[in-house]
């Protein structure tokens, strides 16, 4: 594992753009295509908003930690974790269109988008102990001259 970056942000939606920008700045150094960069930004955006909205529901406050590392020359790993309420049923949470929220027009597509735009996703969570989402993205267009 190389070039490990760790950032901690307050778990508020205002920081969603910042989380994407940090991930994009890191990934830019690996020479991604525009499309790959967009996919990374989108996946991070989903993971961060999940942590901020569902990790700390209601008036709960806390922080979201993002760790990024290069695990192989063309592959990055992004870990987004919170210390919030955790997920009781991870498999159900990851189902397309599943949402706990009924009134606020949430689509329940966050995990589906993360799955589509990365190569691997792992969710570790325990009720009361928070959630960690690990995303692995291979940049296919990396050439080692």
């Amino acid at each position, binding site marked *: 594992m190389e070039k490990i970056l760790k950032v901690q942000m307050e778990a508020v*939606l*205002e920081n*969603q*753009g910042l989380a*994407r920008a940090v991930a994009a700045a890191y990934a830019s150094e690996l020479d991604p295509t525009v*499309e790959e960069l*967009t*996919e990374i*930004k*989108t996946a991070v*955006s*989903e993971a961060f*908003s999940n942590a*901020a*909205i569902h990790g700390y529901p209601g008036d709960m406050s806390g922080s979201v930690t993002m760790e990024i590392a290069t695990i192989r020359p063309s592959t990055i790993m992004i870990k987004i974790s919170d210390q919030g309420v955790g997920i009781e049923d991870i498999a159900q949470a990851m189902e*397309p*269109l599943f949402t706990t929220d009924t009134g*606020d*027009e*949430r*689509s329940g*597509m*966050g995990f*589906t*988008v993360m799955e*589509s735009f990365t190569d691997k996703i792992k969710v570790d969570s325990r009720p009361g102990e928070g959630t960690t989402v690990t995303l692995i993205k291979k940049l296919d267009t990396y050439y080692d001259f």
Partner: protein
Amino acid sequence: MDMIFNIKENILVAELFGELDHHAAGKVREDTDSAMETYGCRDLVFDFTRVTFMDSSGIGVILGRYRKLSAAGGRVAITGCSLTVRNILNMAGVFSLVDYFDTRDEAVNYLNRKEVS
């Protein structure tokens, strides 16, 4: 995220500028709904030409407007999406409910034509 509203007959054209994420989505919903009400529009066109980023929050914004408007006999059309935006909307089956057009004029003409006939 900024928005510009244009009104053509009964159609509200909402042009979005910048990044549409969960943080921005609340304001987009409120501003669109209040413009629809203020100007008494029936149909809605979302123009995504100037959207530089969108995550799954866009799905909720579009389907939410679709549900509201279709209950009152109105329709929603979308135009100007990038490939990634279209991919995300496709994942949730948005285009089975909402029509997509390459240009804003085509969207407006389509909604107008249906209204006449």
